[in-house]
Every structure is written in structure tokens, then in C-alpha cells.
């Protein structure tokens, strides 16, 4: 049996911590977005009011779905331009903010990165420590890590208002939701969290890179920078864009098992709390817990596919003469692209979390995972990142599936479907299906183009040279990750060239905003509806039957869409690997 008792224990304790955090976090979120008093209010209310006065908005001035949508779009465009500008002016940021004198970022890479961080994707076609100045990292990239997370949460809150309010027009004020999320939720956790991270060895400075002379007689240049302050928001906001090229595998970005564990907790906690907030808001916490349970089941299944696959290791490494067997003195397993301090369990738990939650932080390299391990990671993203999900995005995507779910249940019993007392009619289904259909179109469409064109294939040969079925996986993964706004990579694909910078950039923008518009339209349609009392024919959306139905819908929609592509990528590669075939 390739799963050790210690592995099970690490995962189990992790799940219990999430479970315990869900309710308090959810309640706090509920209070913040309803404008209720919290313990931070005495300090933050005056700050908040000052911000509103400067921007000329009124707290009470709520928006219809169209106003909310326009606000999100304009705010995103402004932020994206600002980031582009910072990247393109690096050579004038010397010396405090750019002690290494890094040059301006190339236009197409600057576009790709601006799209990436604005959409909460954090796909990185660059090596952070060799490309981005300290100013770009903290005022450009980390700023977006705050606000793109706040935008995601605001969108979910708007949809929840649509479900909870009756016969109304407004979904709240985007500006107020944005400011409150940043000030009351993200910043306080980040200040405390960043300092905890530093105490464990994460760096936080503006020094030039340190040159050291080793005992072995070489010189080594060690990168520095304001890392901890970025690390915490990168995880809490399910962003994932690391300070360094190797992200949270870098010892300065993730020095030990405690920081590793805290990072994974940050990635998942707000998403879990949002489910509770939703239940509380619609007046029945069981409605939220049921979505939590669906997530938890899919999460644990994923973890216990990846851990055994990685622990069993790669038979090709075994025949090359490597000992992958776990014992008291080594974690063993498939250690290519993994760090010793994390071993198999924390690495696997982290990579399942990062793909389930739309984060994209990595502590180990997905491209080197066994094909089955990699299949779970890509599937987590392709399913729409509803397994706790990205901050906000997880909840709203899960609610889309819930609406499809009640629709299918309604078809089976022949009645008009209802969700939370609201009749789900033609417009709602259209919007939910529209949001769901964009992803396969982008992922499979762009992947096909990339495979057909020499420029797309060149990404494989100029990268790590992963050919055969794994090459297909590399390309599929890139478009899945960018479309899902995840940002992790099968990084053997060289994406820093015009073809991929442009196509992946557009995949990110479409992935974010083609979902946002139908989502807010759905909220706008729902908010106007009256609530009809539950009758005999109402399908209950709280019990075990609903859990099973929802999981079924999620898996069937996902499997039917992507199975043909996966069977030519990771699935056949797993068979080849066991047959000893290499490419």
C-alpha cells in the first residue's frame, strides 16, 4: 500500500482545520459584506469613508447588475493599464525599487502579465527574480493580487444577493464591496501572516542580491526582495503568482513544513468560508454546508489519487536504479521536481489544493508528476475550480452548477426547477450554460490551434522537450490553467514567445470576463424574482440526494467534455510509462 499512515494523518488534520475555520470565517465575511460592525470597525470605518469621499461614491448607492458589471470592467481595465505601465518603465525605477537594474519588460510579455494578474490568473511566462523590479512586484503585481481577489469575492457576493433578495433590483455596490474586502478581510490577515512567514525564514527586504563565497570554493548570487508580503496575499487571494520563478518551492518563499501548511490553508480557507457565508445569507446554513461537502468529497478523492500515484513513483526511475520506496529515512516516491522538506504528502496536498482553488501557487512541479497525478490536477481546473475554488470564483461557479443541477432534477420529475425558492427559467439556464460552455471552447479550441501550428509546437521543443502524449498534456494544461484563471503550469512548455503570450493572454481575459457577464446577468435576473414556498414537487437542495446529484453533474459535464482529449494525453501516457516506453 503506497499511502503511509503519516500521509493520512497529515491530510486528515488539514481537513479538520478547514472544517473548524469555515464557520467563523464565513460569519465574518457575512458581517463585512452586510456592513455590520466587526472588531476592526472602530479603526476602519473612518478609513473606508475617506476612500468613498475621495472617489465620489456613496455607500448607500447600490447598483443594478449592469452597473455592477461596468464597474468591474472599468476597474479591471484601469488596473491592467497601470500594471502594463509599471512593467514598461522599470529602467527608470532605479535604484531603491530596482537595485538589480532590470530592464523594461517586453511589450507582449508585459501584456500577458498584465492580463494574467488582472484576471487573478497569475500565469507567469517570466523568471521573477530576473525580470520584475521590486516596484513592479509589490505595487504592480501584489496590488492586483489584492484587488483581483476582492473583485472575485465581490462578484460572488453580488450573485448571492441576487439569490437572497426578493423582488428587488440591486446587487449591491461594487466599489463598497471592493473596498471592504480589501480593508477588512485581506489586509489584516496579510499583515499578521507576512510577519509569521518572516519569522520562519521567508525574506522581506529591498537589498541588492547577495554574493557569497561557499566552503566548496564557488561564488553564489542569492536573490533577495520583499517576498513575504507578496507570498501571503498570493495564497490568501488564490492568485498564485510567485516572487521567484519556482514559486513556493523556493526556500525563501516557503522555508519549511509549517509555512507550507499555512500556505495551503490560506489558499482554501476563504473559499470554504464563502460557502458558509452563502448559506447564512440565504437563511439556511445547510444550503452552504451541502456545497462544502460536495467540495470536500471531490477534494479528498483527488488527494487520495495523487498521493498513491506519486508515492508509488515512476517505474522508469526504478529501472534506472533509483530507490523510491518509502521508509523511516526517506519519503521516496517520484521526487523529480519536489523538495525534500515537503516530500510526497505536502507536495501532493498542495498541488491538489492549488488546482482545486484556482490559486496556482506551486511547491513542486506539476509537469514532472506521474501522468495520473497530473490528470487530477488538470481535471480540478477543467471542472471549473469549484472544489472550494478561487476566492469568489469557486462559489459562483459552484452556484452555476447548482442551477444546472436543479434544472436536470426538474427535467427528471417534469416540474419547473427551483433553487432557494426561486423559479429557474429559460434566462437563468441560458446564462449558466453560457458560462459553462466558454471554457471547453477556449481550452480545446486554442489547444487544437497550438498543436496544428509550428509556433505552437515550438513551445515544446524549445522548452523541456516533453514529447509524445506528454507534449499534448503540456499544451492542454497551459490553456486549461489560463482559461480557468489558475496560473499553474506544466512549465516544460516554453510560453514566453509571441504565439503563447498572445493566445494565453486572451484565454485568461476570456476565461475571466466571459464568465463574469453571464454571471452578473444571472444575478440580475434572479434578484427580481419572488420566492415561492417549497411544495411537494420541490427538489430539496440540502440532503444526501442533492450531494450525489451535484457531484454527478459536475463529473459528467467535466468528463464528457474533456475525456477524449485526456485519453490521448495523460491516460495513454500512464499506460506507456508502465510499458517502459519513453519519448
Amino acid at each position, binding site marked *: 500500500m503506497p499511502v503511509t499512515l503519516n500521509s493520512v494523518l497529515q491530510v486528515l488534520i488539514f481537513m479538520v482545520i478547514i472544517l473548524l475555520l469555515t464557520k467563523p470565517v464565513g460569519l465574518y465575511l457575512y458581517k463585512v459584506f452586510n456592513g455590520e460592525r466587526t472588531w476592526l470597525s472602530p479603526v476602519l470605518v473612518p478609513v473606508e469613508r475617506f476612500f468613498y469621499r475621495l*472617489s465620489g461614491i456613496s455607500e448607500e448607492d447600490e447598483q443594478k447588475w449592469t452597473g455592477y458589471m461596468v464597474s468591474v470592467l472599468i476597474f479591471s481595465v484601469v488596473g491592467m493599464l497601470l500594471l502594463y505601465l509599471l512593467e514598461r518603465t522599470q529602467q527608470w525605477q532605479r535604484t531603491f525599487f530596482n537595485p538589480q537594474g532590470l530592464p523594461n519588460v517586453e511589450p507582449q510579455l508585459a501584456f500577458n502579465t498584465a492580463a494574467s494578474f488582472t484576471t487573478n490568473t497569475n500565469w507567469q511566462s517570466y523568471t521573477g527574480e530576473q525580470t520584475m523590479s521590486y516596484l513592479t512586484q509589490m505595487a504592480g503585481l501584489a496590488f492586483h493580487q489584492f*484587488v483581483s481577489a476582492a473583485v472575485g469575492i465581490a462578484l460572488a457576493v453580488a450573485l448571492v444577493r441576487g439569490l437572497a433578495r426578493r423582488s428587488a433590483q440591486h446587487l449591491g455596490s461594487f466599489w463598497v464591496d471592493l473596498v471592504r474586502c480589501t480593508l477588512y478581510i485581506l489586509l489584516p490577515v496579510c*499583515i499578521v501572516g*507576512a510577519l509569521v512567514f518572516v519569522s520562519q525564514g521567508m525574506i522581506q527586504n529591498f537589498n541588492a542580491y547577495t554574493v557569497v563565497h561557499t566552503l*566548496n570554493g564557488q561564488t553564489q*548570487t542569492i536573490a533577495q526582495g520583499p517576498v513575504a508580503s507578496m507570498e501571503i496575499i498570493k495564497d490568501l487571494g488564490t492568485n498564485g503568482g510567485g516572487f521567484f520563478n519556482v514559486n513556493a518551492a523556493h526556500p525563501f518563499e516557503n522555508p519549511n513544513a509549517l509555512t507550507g501548511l499555512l500556505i495551503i490553508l490560506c489558499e482554501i480557507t476563504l473559499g470554504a468560508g464563502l460557502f458558509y457565508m452563502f448559506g447564512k445569507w440565504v437563511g439556511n446554513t445547510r444550503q452552504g454546508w451541502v456545497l462544502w461537502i460536495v467540495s470536500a468529497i471531490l477534494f479528498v478523492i483527488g488527494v487520495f489519487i495523487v498521493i498513491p500515484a506519486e508515492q508509488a513513483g515512476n517505474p522508469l*526511475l526504478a529501472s534506472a536504479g*533509483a530507490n523510491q520506496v518509502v521508509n523511516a529515512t526517506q519519503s521516496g516516491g517520484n521526487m523529480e521536481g519536489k523538495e525534500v522538506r515537503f516530500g510526497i504528502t505536502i507536495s501532493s496536498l498542495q498541488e491538489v489544493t492549488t488546482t482545486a482553488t484556482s490559486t496556482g501557487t506551486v511547491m513542486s512541479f506539476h509537469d514532472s508528476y506521474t501522468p495520473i497525478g497530473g490528470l487530477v490536477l488538470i481535471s480540478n481546473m477543467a471542472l471549473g475550480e469549484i472544489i472550494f475554488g478561487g476566492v469568489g470564483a469557486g462559489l459562483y461557479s459552484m452556484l452555476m452548477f447548482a442551477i444546472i443541477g436543479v434544472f436536470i432534477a426538474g427535467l427528471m420529475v417534469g416540474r419547473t426547477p427551483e433553487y432557494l425558492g426561486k423559479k429557474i427559467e429559460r434566462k437563468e439556464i441560458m446564462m449558466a450554460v453560457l458560462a459553462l460552455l466558454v471554457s471547453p471552447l477556449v481550452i480545446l479550441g486554442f489547444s487544437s490551434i497550438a498543436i496544428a501550428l509550428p509556433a505552437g509546437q515550438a513551445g515544446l521543443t524549445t522548452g523541456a522537450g516533453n514529447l509524445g502524449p506528454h507534449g499534448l498534456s503540456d499544451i492542454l494544461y497551459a490553456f486549461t490553467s489560463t482559461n480557468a484563471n489558475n496560473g499553474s503550469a506544466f512549465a516544460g512548455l516554453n510560453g514566453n514567445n509571441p504565439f503563447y503570450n498572445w493566445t494565453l493572454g486572451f484565454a485568461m481575459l476570456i476565461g475571466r470576463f466571459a464568465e463574469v457577464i453571464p454571471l452578473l446577468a444571472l444575478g440580475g435576473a434572479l434578484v427580481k424574482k419572488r420566492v415561492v414556498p417549497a411544495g411537494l414537487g420541490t427538489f430539496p437542495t440540502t440532503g444526501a440526494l442533492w450531494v450525489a446529484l451535484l457531484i454527478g453533474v459536475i463529473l459528467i459535464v467535466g468528463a464528457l467534455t474533456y475525456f477524449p482529449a485526456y485519453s490521448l494525453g495523460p491516460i495513454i501516457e500512464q499506460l506507456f510509462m508502465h510499458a517502459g516506453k519513453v519519448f
Partner: protein
Amino acid sequence: MKTFLTKYLRPAVVLTLILTIVTGFLYPGVVTGIAQLIFPYQANGSLVKASNGTVIGSDLIGQYWTKPGYFHGRPSVTVNPSTGTPEPYAADNSTASNSGPTNAAFIQTVQQRVAALKKENPNAPAGPVPVDLVTASASGLDPDISIAGAMYQVPRIASERGLSHDVVAKLVTDHETGRFLGIFGEPYVNVLDLNLALDACAALPSSC
């Protein structure tokens, strides 16, 4: 048009600027200030100094050990950022191999690493070698090796340094870092710490 300017553009521009100041300058500035005050050692990279005061590395960043008298770290596939040529443990250009599990060149590389490792360690136990010693780490800067990876090198170190097998093996177990709370992560040995202790031990054998 006026509505667009006041209701959308002004709040978008003003909030972008305010939040940039707050999250992009004040927040990292405050965190840096406090971190430098309370945790200066960690915040500046856990730099290790020799007795004469020169910086010999970071406790957290792996180094490229090649001398047979030192414990060696894991394979690293980092490259020099200026020349693009292979330079293991280039700590200003972290990278993983990103080799897929059925990549022919990767499997061949592992076979070569196994052969080289066995040649360097003729007195090590025969049979398969610890996997972490022949696979590239995620960061290219992994400062640690597994206990098995350190023990595998003990016979070589003992004969190179003229120390007994038991003394060197005890150094390894003394420098083992266990799991966090006995549960999370994996046990490991920090190679720099171990080699510093080894130097001290070789200089004054009675001390170990």
C-alpha cells in the same frame, strides 16, 4: 457621458490609486519595517557567516557541493542567468527541470546520475540509490537531502576525512530535522549545517 465619468471612471481611477498606495506601498513598507526590526536574520536571508565574518551562504539555500570530502546535495538544473549555460544552484535564477515522466532525455539523465553516484561512492551499499540524490529538486536550490541520502554518502565521507563510519553517521542523525509537530513534512538534513559540523569535527575530532 457625465454619469460614466462620475459613477464609473472616477471611482475606478481613484480607488486604483488609493489601493495601490495602501496595498502596494504602505503594506509592504510596514511589513518590511517590522520584519527588519524583529526578525532581521530571517528577513535578510538567514545568511551564515564563517568565523572570520565572511558570508559563506544562506542556511536556506542549497549550494553546489563537489568536493568528495563534503556531503553533496541534490541534482540542480539551474542555469547562469547571463550566459544561459548550466550552473547548478544558481540562486538568482531558480528553476525545476519540468521533465515529464516519460521524457527520454530525462530518464537517460537519471541513469547517468545513478552511475556517477555509484562511482563516487564505491563503498556505499549496492542496489538502488536514494531517489532524492538522482532527481532534480523543484527549486534547483533544495538545501536538504533525505536521511537515506546522507547515510548513503557516509562511507565516502568517512574515508575522505579519516573519520570512523560511526562518528560520521552520528553527525547525520544529530543534524536530522524531524517533522513539524512530529506530523507535517518530512525528516531531512540541511547539507550546509551538516558540512559545517563535519568541518568542525574533522578539525577537532574529540569534539564529536
